[in-house]
């Protein structure tokens, strides 16, 4: 029996050994495979926890954009249908009671139709207060009968989400951009999308290194906050004045908006920080596709190069005008467009714009576009300081030269005219700039030569992006002069025609001219903070290069000061000066590519104080609604002055010049003055038309890429010069020539006869024509 016991034991032992071997072989041979199989049959339900997009702050810490937590109401039809559907009625009643906007019938039919559905969002963007009403109903004590009948609320839950808010609505809309569902679009929102975006969190079960299942919550990583250099106050001052400009000059000369485009950049020339950047029209960032309340006048003009004559018949070409609200709403939709128009938008004055789907998309894209960085144009005379700075810096000229201006310069086969056809006589470099003399500039450009000019063109970053931290910047590199530029090209390039730049390229380059030659990368973000508020990245002003020497810079500042601070008869920019300050700057009047002598881009680049620049303001007005656009540079200088007058005290820049009595009065009445100006302008459209007629006369002869800053300033400026001079004789503010009291035409200072054919001298240019398309 003992032996049998041992046999039995050995049998069991063998069985055990065999099983142990089997166990080991399973683990060894199939371990990894089975591990995968175990993991693969896991159906882990992961719940998404949304991240919070970072805020965008202005330089004072005010919120330009932030994300707000909201809740989506999600219906779980499967849960609601449990217990024989007893939950449906009380639940839907509770929803209807808590959310008046909810469509109870829709939910009910959905729950009946898709009883196995577990996720369907019915309401978006509910606030916590809104959902707490429902949650109170859900969590209240239920009576015994209800409990028994299962008439409890079930199958509804709230999902967290974030919605983007822009508390200032349309303020700085072009800079900030907006957030679509898929990320930022335009501006800072797009450029800094990666910083602003966080990482969604998840509530999930995951397998750690030891193949252990762990159910955890990985919290969402919130996005970073941007601290920008934008100053909301300066931005709103700028936008206010742009709006005022648009209101004032609307339908001034031709039917339609005050200008095709406008751009204003206010920045610190000493570090490249942008204080403000604005265009027109503005849109509500909270609802960017909603065109209601947006002034679309400038986009409803199909032919942007229209002559005033055709502009008045704008209705035939589908132009929608809005001078009188009631009339406009009735007549606004042109008959031939009525069928095609799928969308309508109501403008701020009640005018109704109708458009097709495609038009609507185009308009949206144009509104969202940031003119200051995305559009290029021929800079005109604002280019002159660049040419002079290059010439002095490379040794082409010393600055002590003087040139003789005979009114034009013969370049090859072309006569390239100065704005003042009579010629300014002998001019120093400084006077040349102050009077914006093309002949002087051409001579200077010839003195330095094409190669040097091109070299400095590159140094000043033309044709390259400034790398400002905004989405959508264009380099306009195809529209710049290359090595193959001819002499004529150089001649017109010297005063900013024939090639394109963007506003930001001009402003950034100009800053380097006036700040000692330091080219700062223009930027809008000074600091990036994490969601806890700790600074994770400080963006210091970055000097990209030294464009010109400090000595040249000092010399240029002297010249630029003369543009604004000289006697009105000796300079072009006197009207830009804010009372009490010294200002330097440069005017610009660039003829548009069609070279018809009618359409111009006018601009002014100014900085204050003249000796030690602290703030720079660049104003560009594309095709102002003015009878004589070539004479309307003053619109830009005045806009510059109005903006500066408000911005300077705000920036604690103190006046250094004693105010004259007139200036005191003017300052006091600064608010009303603008509108008065506007009224006087409106009343004198007739004389404006005359000026336009004059222009047309001269048009047939020539079409040159020409600066024509001389000549008539228009009746409104005449009034101003009179005020300024305090005498009966009025002088043209740009040329200093006396004006005909009756017609406002510029008179020859010697003969006192009207200067005829003073506009649009035609010099056909080779490369310029094709290159200068805007």
């Amino acid at each position, binding site marked *: 029996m003992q032996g049998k016991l041992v046999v039995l034991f050995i049998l069991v032992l063998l069985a055990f050994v065999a099983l142990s071997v089997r166990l080991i072989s399973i*683990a060894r041979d199939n371990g990894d495979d089975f591990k995968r199989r175990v993991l693969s049959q896991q159906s882990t339900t992961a719940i998404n926890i949304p991240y919070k997009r970072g805020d965008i702050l202005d330089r004072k810490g005010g919120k330009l954009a932030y994300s707000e937590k909201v809740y989506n109401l999600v219906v779980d039809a499967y849960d609601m249908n449990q217990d024989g559907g007893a939950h449906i009625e009380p639940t839907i009643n509770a929803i209807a009671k808590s959310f008046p906007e909810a469509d109870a019938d829709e939910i009910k039919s959905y729950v009946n139709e898709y009883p196995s559905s577990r996720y369907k969002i019915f309401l978006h963007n509910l606030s916590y207060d809104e959902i707490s009403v429902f949650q109170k109903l859900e969590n209240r004590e239920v009576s015994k009968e209800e409990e028994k009948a299962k008439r409890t609320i079930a199958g509804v839950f709230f999902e967290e989400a974030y919605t983007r808010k822009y508390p200032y609505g349309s303020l700085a809309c072009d800079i900030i951009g907006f957030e679509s569902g898929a990320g930022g679009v335009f501006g800072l929102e797009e450029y800094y999308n990666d910083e602003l975006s966080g990482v969604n969190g998840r509530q999930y079960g995951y397998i750690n290194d030891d193949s252990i*299942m762990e159910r955890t919550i990985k919290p969402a990583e919130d996005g970073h906050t941007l601290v920008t250099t934008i100053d909301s106050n300066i931005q709103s001052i700028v936008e206010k004045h742009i709006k005022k400009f648009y209101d004032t000059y609307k339908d001034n000369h031709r039917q339609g908006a005050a200008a095709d485009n406008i751009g204003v950049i206010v920045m610190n020339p000493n570090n490249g920080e942008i204080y403000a950047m604005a265009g027109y029209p503005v849109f509500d960032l909270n609802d960017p596709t909603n065109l209601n309340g947006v002034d679309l006048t400038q986009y409803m003009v199909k032919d942007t190069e229209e002559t005033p004559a055709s502009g008045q018949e704008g209705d035939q070409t589908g132009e929608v005008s809005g001078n009188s609200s009631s009339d406009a709403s009735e007549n606004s939709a042109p008959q031939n467009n009525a069928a095609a128009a799928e969308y309508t938008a109501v403008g701020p004055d009640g005018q109704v714009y109708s458009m097709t789907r495609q038009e609507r998309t185009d308009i949206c894209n144009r509104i969202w576009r940031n003119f200051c960085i995305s559009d290029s144009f021929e800079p005109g005379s604002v280019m002159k300081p660049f040419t002079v700075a290059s010439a002095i810096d490379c040794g082409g000229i010393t600055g002590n030269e003087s040139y003789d201006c005979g009114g034009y310069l013969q370049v090859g086969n072309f006569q390239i005219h100065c704005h003042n056809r009579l010629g300014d006589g002998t001019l120093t470099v400084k006077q040349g700039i102050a009077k914006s003399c093309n002949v002087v500039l051409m001579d200077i450009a010839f003195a330095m030569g094409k190669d040097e000019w091109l070299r400095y063109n590159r140094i000043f970053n033309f044709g390259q992006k400034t790398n400002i931290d905004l989405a959508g910047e264009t380099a306009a590199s195809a529209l710049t002069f290359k090595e193959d530029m001819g002499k004529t090209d150089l001649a017109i390039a010297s005063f900013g025609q024939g090639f394109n730049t963007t506003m930001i390229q001009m402003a950034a380059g100009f800053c380097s001219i006036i700040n000692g030659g330091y080219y700062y990368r223009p930027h809008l973000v000074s600091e990036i903070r994490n969601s806890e508020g700790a600074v994770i990245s400080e963006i210091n002003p970055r000097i990209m290069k030294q464009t010109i020497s400090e000595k040249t810079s000092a010399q240029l500042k002297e010249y630029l000061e003369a543009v604004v601070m000289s006697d009105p008869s000796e300079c072009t920019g006197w009207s830009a000066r804010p009372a009490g300050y010294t200002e330097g700057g440069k005017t610009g009047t660039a003829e548009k590519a069609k070279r018809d002598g009618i359409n111009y881009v006018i601009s002014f680049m100014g900085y204050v104080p003249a000796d030690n620049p602290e703030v720079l303001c660049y104003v560009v007005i594309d095709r102002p609604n003015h009878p004589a656009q070539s004479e309307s540079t003053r619109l830009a200088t005045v806009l510059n002055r109005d903006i500066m007058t408000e911005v300077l005290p705000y920036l604690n820049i103190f006046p250094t010049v004693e105010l004259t009595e007139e200036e005191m009065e003017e300052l006091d009445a600064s608010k009303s003055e603008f509108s008065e100006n506007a009224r006087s302008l409106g009343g004198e459209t007739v004389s404006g038309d005359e000026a336009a007629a004059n222009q047309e006369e001269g048009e047939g002869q020539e079409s040159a890429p020409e600066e024509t800053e001389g000549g008539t300033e228009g009746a409104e400026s005449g009034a101003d010069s009179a005020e300024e001079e305090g005498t009966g004789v009025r002088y043209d503010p740009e040329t200093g020539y006396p004006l005909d009291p009756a017609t406002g035409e510029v008179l020859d200072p010697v003969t006192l006869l009207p200067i005829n054919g003073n506009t649009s001298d035609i010099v056909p240019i080779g490369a310029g024509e094709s290159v200068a398309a805007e």
Partner: protein
Amino acid sequence: MSDGAGTARVRNANPRQLRRERRKAGAAAKRQRSYMDYGILFIVIFLSCFGLIMIYSITQYSLSMSGLNPRQYLNNQLRSMIFGLFLMLFIGFVMDYRLIQKISTPIFIAALCMIPLVLSPLGRGQVNGASRWLYIFGMSVQPSEIVKGSVIIFTAAMINKRRYLLQSFVGVLTVLATVAGIPAAMLFLITDNMSSAIIVCGIVFFMLFVASKKYWHYVLLGGGAVGAVGLLVYLVRSNVIDAASDFRFARITAWLDPYADSSGVGYQILQSLYSIGSGGIFGKGLGHSIQKMGYIPEAQNDMIFSIICEELGVFTGIAIIFMFMILIWRMMIVASNAVDLYGSMLVVGVMSHLGLQVVINVAVVTNVIPNTGIPLPFISYGGTAMFMFLAEIGIVISVARRIPVEERE
């Protein structure tokens, strides 16, 4: 349970003997003491406690997920374990196993009578199409487990009284037919519980094997059984027998190729293999099983060994097998040293029972044999089985305590 009446009578009947035993035990400290196998006691308590931990680890997740008390299964098992330990101590230290011989027939008959009761209103629980439980006083009792115990007692008595029957092959067959055949047939036909029937047959077979001096009887019987099973497997495999006709045949095909029907019959065994394989040598750590979260149905019962391997590794699985090995070894020592044949046969019965269940259970979870529901002794969840195993260990202790031990001094 059913033998409660019996034990009560034993207690009342032998006060004198008990006193003598106590006196003897006290004196043994100095002169001569009765043999006490602490190894068996320790391993049994250890395995039972280990089983509690594993049951809690396995069930607490799914219980708490369904809103129940996560310790519900733990508490049930603990209750059975405490009752069982008391019974074990009582049988082992108070009762004389020789008394059992006298009441073995009534116990056997009473146990057999419980089987048909599952068809009465007392047997309510329908599990896998067959009622295998009795509900008495709010407790669920599994008659098959009681039958296994009673068969050991009855067979031991039978061998003790009629050992001569084992001389002839016919006699062996007769004993097998009566002692194993009747309960096995009842279990299989009434409760549709083939695994218990196999265990009963196996216990009796091995008890007879040890009691007999002959080998060829058992080689013949064992070879016949293996051959029959082999033939069945062959027939199922070659589609002579339609596997779909009975779930047992389907289990044979699933055993041959568990991947063939991985979501059906092969599901449980595949999941068990996944558990063992994914656990690796040292496992995922106690409580970190993934498979217990609903992938292995009723993982706390027959498949507990696979979860042990998943959480604590094959290493621990083999360690557990080793523990059982030691337990069986200690029982072998007790059986070979028992003072009488009856005691020896009792221990052999318990040893066979234990060994068979462990081997079959582990073989099932490792897919060495077709799936059949056998719990792992001491560890698997199941009150009656726990209770009966502890009672059987009590018998072993009782037998062991009769072994005279020489003085060590």
